């Protein structure tokens, strides 16, 4: 079709694309600003100048350096990474499952993680109660709990993969399997909680409160590798997700191997979520709402939705965590409470605004 070589780009298209690019760049700048602010504020105020000097490798005051490198920077990076990973996984899952309620937790991963943690607390003796300055309860053996939660998440993913291989990788099969497994793991957790003593019960419930403060540099390193790999994979598949959004048949006719893309996307989203959940506990809402906030503003094109969702997730979790640290200092609120408090009104505003157009 040689006539196709002579087309003229519609007026306004370049500006339309640029608006999306500027939105993403704006989000990036805001994320950097928020990162510096989050490191600066807290029980001990570290001047922004010190933070910038520390982050750029310039010499800083010893006390500030300790606060920044040992406490606040890993804390903030954990929030950035977890927010990005959960939001990217959510954006991919909503496309893969063709379901607006798709999120990293649609497949029952949060319930599986909670069960894994409860299992470790009760049966592997990982749960004893301690008092610290900032929190009433800590888990005695975090590594065992993390490992157990991670294995439970991976087990869930493998069961869904096995079911999908038997029954076909349709969104309905995946979502319903996730709901069933979620119910199963919730029942398992309740069973354990019923027989747990007070200390174990407190440790189990405490674990489900997602908290980015649990991450040290080692956890941040693991999460960085997992989130980076997942985001690269999702971005690599951006056109596949756009094609699946147009319908499975259309996607197949465009050369997309729909079942394979769906299955692989589900596995990657599950794994990255498993890393985050097992290190930090359950942080819901970010993966569900951030992609929707982004879609409402810049549309459904995954070339833009994926990077923008990552940044929105990072901003929401970092802002929530900072607020959680400051609101009732020295006590730290569970970040999951704040993500909903900050994200839900923003999302509802966008929802109403679009309706009223």
């Amino acid at each position, binding site marked *: 079709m040689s*006539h196709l*070589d002579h087309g003229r780009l519609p007026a306004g298209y370049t500006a339309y694309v640029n608006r999306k690019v500027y939105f993403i760049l704006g989000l990036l700048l805001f994320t950097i600003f928020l990162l510096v602010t989050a490191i600066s504020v807290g029980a001990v105020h570290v001047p922004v100048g010190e933070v910038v000097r520390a982050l750029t490798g310039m010499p800083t005051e010893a006390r500030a350096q300790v606060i920044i490198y040992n406490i606040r920077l890993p804390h903030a990076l954990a929030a950035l990474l977890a927010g990005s990973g959960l939001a990217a996984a959510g954006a991919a899952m909503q496309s893969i499952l063709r379901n607006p309620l798709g999120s990293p937790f649609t497949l029952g991963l949060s319930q599986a993680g909670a069960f894994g943690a409860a299992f470790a607390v009760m049966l592997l003796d990982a749960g004893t109660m301690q008092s610290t300055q900032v929190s009433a309860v800590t888990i005695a053996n975090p590594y065992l709990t993390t490992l157990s939660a991670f294995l439970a998440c991976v087990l869930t993913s493998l069961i869904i993969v096995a079911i999908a291989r038997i029954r076909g990788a349709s969104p309905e099969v995946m979502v319903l399997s996730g709901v069933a497994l979620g119910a199963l793991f919730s029942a398992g957790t309740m069973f354990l909680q019923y027989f747990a003593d007070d200390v174990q019960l407190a440790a189990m419930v405490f674990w489900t409160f997602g908290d980015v403060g649990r991450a040290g540099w080692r956890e941040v390193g693991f999460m960085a590798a997992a989130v980076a790999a997942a985001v690269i994979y999702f971005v690599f598949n951006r056109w596949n997700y756009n094609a699946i959004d147009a319908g499975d048949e259309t996607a197949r006719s465009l050369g997309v191997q729909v079942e394979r893309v769906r299955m692989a996307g589900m596995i990657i989203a599950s794994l990255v979520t498993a890393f985050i959940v097992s290190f930090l506990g359950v942080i819901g809402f970010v993966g569900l709402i951030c992609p929707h906030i982004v879609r409402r503003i810049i549309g459904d094109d995954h070339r833009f939705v994926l990077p923008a969702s990552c940044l929105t997730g990072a901003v929401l979790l970092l802002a929530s965590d900072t607020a959680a640290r400051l609101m009732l200092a020295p006590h730290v609120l569970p970040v999951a409470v704040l993500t909903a408090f900050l994200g839900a009104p923003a999302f509802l505003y966008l929802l109403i605004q679009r309706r009223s157009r």
Partner: protein
Amino acid sequence: MLAVKDIRIGYKGGGLVLDDLEFNLGRGQLLAVLGPNGVGKTTLLRCINAMIKPWAGSVLVEDASVFHMTAAEIAKYLGYVAQRNEAGRMTAFDAVLLGRKPHLRWRVSREDLTKVSAVLHHLGLEHLALRHIDEMSGGELQKVCIARALVQEPQVLLLDEPTSSLDLKNQLDILGTIRRVAKQHGIAAVMTMHDLNLALRFADRFLFLKHGRVFACGRPDQVTAEMVQAVYDVQVDVLHHDGQVVVVPAANASTSAKRYSDRP
């Protein structure tokens, strides 16, 4: 251009859906595949597009078997417009750009953008380029989907009931567009349809399916009332009006089901 040979398709555990199906289609020709619901029209299109692998037989495009091609290669030869098209929040331009997927590399090239613009211009859709497809009417969305299939630069265009749920003006508009594009660019088009009159007006050839087999095939002027009656089990009259073939239900039209229910 397109050769479908001895196709036999069945579902696991079920009976045969299509059997002994064979036809050829040349450049620029339009074939209307007709028959009652459930006879296997959509299955035939999916088989041609290699979405379903037949038990036996072959589908050749330019003498190359589609069953030996990768998914991306098939997408360069065959464009497919599905019966149901989902509309996300995306401009028509980006929705059509998706059709370049089989040709895309990491970045969208200037060439890809140029081709999308050209297809939109060719189908008279330039004014819709920056409109979101989730705000479009059924007719507009269908044209965008056809544009998306055309920008794949296919040799063969497959359309599954392209005019279902459209009003008369849009039906004529869409079929006219398909015919014009097919003729101008030598694309072979296979359309499944329910409206016999539109099919016979716009297609070069018809193919009636009955019980999964080719019951009759030919030019529109070769359609007879007996053929239609045998395929659809409805009494009809075939009229010739202004050089066109028109199928109308007979004044005393009744189906066999009706006749049986009338029995005492």
